[in-house]
């Protein structure tokens, strides 16, 4: 059995705030990513998913503290802090950021920004870098001659493709995508998502995609990790998660997702996620759960195996095999 390409062990991230308190944004997150596997990290705002992927590349702000291990090919790249993660950044693991469309320097041509990365990180000569930049553009579906254009001459979708090209520049093995389709139109979203899926298949990349859009991420990824209040509360193959969610949050989230054909009553989950600047007793989802009982108040559930390749953190799984499947109109 091959060792996983990326393994995250017990990642915790704290943020120091102005008034001195600490926000425990990521709480003991662990997961693995195999080579050429496409996994998703799903959750709503504030659940810590973006913080998690930023932590993997050592891109947290100075107010952050973290603990845990990030193993790439068996080596902990966080061992020496900035020094060790620097060498892995972009060459082994690259990221497409949230709002990447606005991450380009507006006064420089897009091509030159990619060339810069290639020359600095991959050590290519100027000519080789320019050729490679054109190659990358072709790979992501932008006409090659656009290399000499400025960011404002690109549409949002094109800029996102350019951001993907930038991420692929140094041929990483792992691609992290943090909400790559936010602020794009639905058609363009579909195009970008399809592009990601195709690229990862063709290049054999491992993909970790972060999104709040469950159906969207289900199109690309084979496995999903569902996050809530800084923890992973369920994990498993996409289809299994839909058919038999093992955590009430997953079930409710699916029930809250609109569907243009299955126009049944949509559910909304009352309340809000818990504050992360204090310790949480019991299950973090308890206040909003429709199936909570006394044990949920006092004992925090642990993420454990509930089936083949399936894990969930819910006390209900100790009593019944799994939640009843979601009722869907045939």
């Amino acid at each position, binding site marked *: 059995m091959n060792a996983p390409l990326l393994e995250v062990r017990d990642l915790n991230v704290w943020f120091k705030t102005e008034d001195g308190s600490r926000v425990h944004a990521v709480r003991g997150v662990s997961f693995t990513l195999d080579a050429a596997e496409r996994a998703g990290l799903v959750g709503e705002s504030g659940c810590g998913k973006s913080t998690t992927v930023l932590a993997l590349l050592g891109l947290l702000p100075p107010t952050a503290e973290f603990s845990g291990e990030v193993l790439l090919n068996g080596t902990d790249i966080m061992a020496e802090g900035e020094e060790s993660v620097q060498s892995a950044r972009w060459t082994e693991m690259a990221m497409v950021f949230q709002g990447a469309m606005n991450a380009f320097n507006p006064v420089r041509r897009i091509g030159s920004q990619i060339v810069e990365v290639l020359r600095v990180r991959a050590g290519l000569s100027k000519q080789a870098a320019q050729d490679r930049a054109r190659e990358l553009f072709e790979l992501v579906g932008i006409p090659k001659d656009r290399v000499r254009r400025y960011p404002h001459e690109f549409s949002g979708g094109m800029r996102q493709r350019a951001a993907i090209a930038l991420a692929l520049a140094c041929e990483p093995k792992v691609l992290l995508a943090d909400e790559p389709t936010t602020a794009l139109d639905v058609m363009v979203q579909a195009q970008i998502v399809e592009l990601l899926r195709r690229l990862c298949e063709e290049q054999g990349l491992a993909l970790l995609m972060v999104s709040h859009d469950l159906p969207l991420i289900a199109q690309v990824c084979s496995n999903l990790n569902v996050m809530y209040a800084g923890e992973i509360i369920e994990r498993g193959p996409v289809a299994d998660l839909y058919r038999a969610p093992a955590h009430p949050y997953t079930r409710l989230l699916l029930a*809250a997702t609109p569907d243009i054909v299955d126009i049944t009553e949509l559910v909304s989950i009352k309340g809000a996620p818990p504050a992360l600047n204090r310790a949480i007793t019991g299950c973090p989802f308890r206040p909003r759960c429709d199936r909570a009982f006394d044990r949920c108040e006092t004992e925090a559930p642990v993420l454990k195996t509930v089936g083949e390749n399936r894990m969930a953190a819910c006390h209900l799984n100790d009593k019944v095999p799994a939640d009843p499947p979601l009722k869907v109109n045939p």
Partner: protein
Amino acid sequence: MTAATVGTDTPLLAVDGLVAEYRSARSLVDSIARRRSHVVHAVDDVSFTLRRGEMLGLVGESGCGKTTTAQTVLRLIEPVAGSITFGGEDITHLDPRQLRRLRQQMQLVYQDPYESLNPRYRVRQVIEEPLRIHGIGSKRTRAEMVNEALARVELNPPGLFADRFPHELSGGQRQRVAIAASLVVKPELFVADEPVSMLDVSVRAGIMELLRTLCREDGMAVLIIAHDLAMVAHSAQRIAVMYLGRIVELGPTTQVLSNPQHPYTKALCAVAPRRDPANRGQVTLLGGEVADASAIPPGCRFHPRCPIADEGCQVTDPRLHTVPDSAGQHEVACLKAP
């Protein structure tokens, strides 16, 4: 309530042939050189009606003119041509002073709940402000109306929420506050510009359900702007799909979604994410990007991206015609549709 006495059959809002444009400012040099200003045809001949107690979803991608349509209907942007009839009265050419009294009856809720409330105002002040502007009620009655509005949007207990600042509330709660601030003057027309697109999925349904209740129980006419069909599929009774400033398909939600006639609507339906991943069929993605509204192609404006366009489509600009077997409810603007 308006003084105009209209029968329940007459629509509250009737928009006919609406045209709105954005013109780029011309400098002195441009004027001397007689250069024509850059015109963006944001809304190009849009017509629809809206009845009391009805929710209409206006759907389209960015640049299709849906937000501009909403703003023009509310006379926040001046229409270049066409007419807007509200409560039986033609409001297209009312002057600012008359418009101000009308504003009480037409309210707008914005997309961004994080920016649409003044961060220095407590919730109570935010909701009370429209009452003060229109001189409604006394200090005491206003306080009661604020609490009533908060209860209506399910922010209970009202007293607790009234004292908060916006930054102490979640996005969903902020949006409810914005809705409360619009409800407090008891409008007849409610326009919501992408009210849930910046909110989490788990709270979206709650807000949409609230809007549906307002529609059903209070008989308000609600116009929802959305950028994807899924957002309005569960709440709106009718859907209008817009592309580049025109309505290309219009009809009851169930009919439009189950039997889309226009290629653009079909494409939107195809890319709409489905709850069950197994339900996604093979999707042929529409190529290209949304066209520029300042350079509208001749003939049917959709033909450059249309998978079934032919030479006729490059020449003739289609008008809305009724789809057969739809009792005149379902209309489409496509030369290839029956």
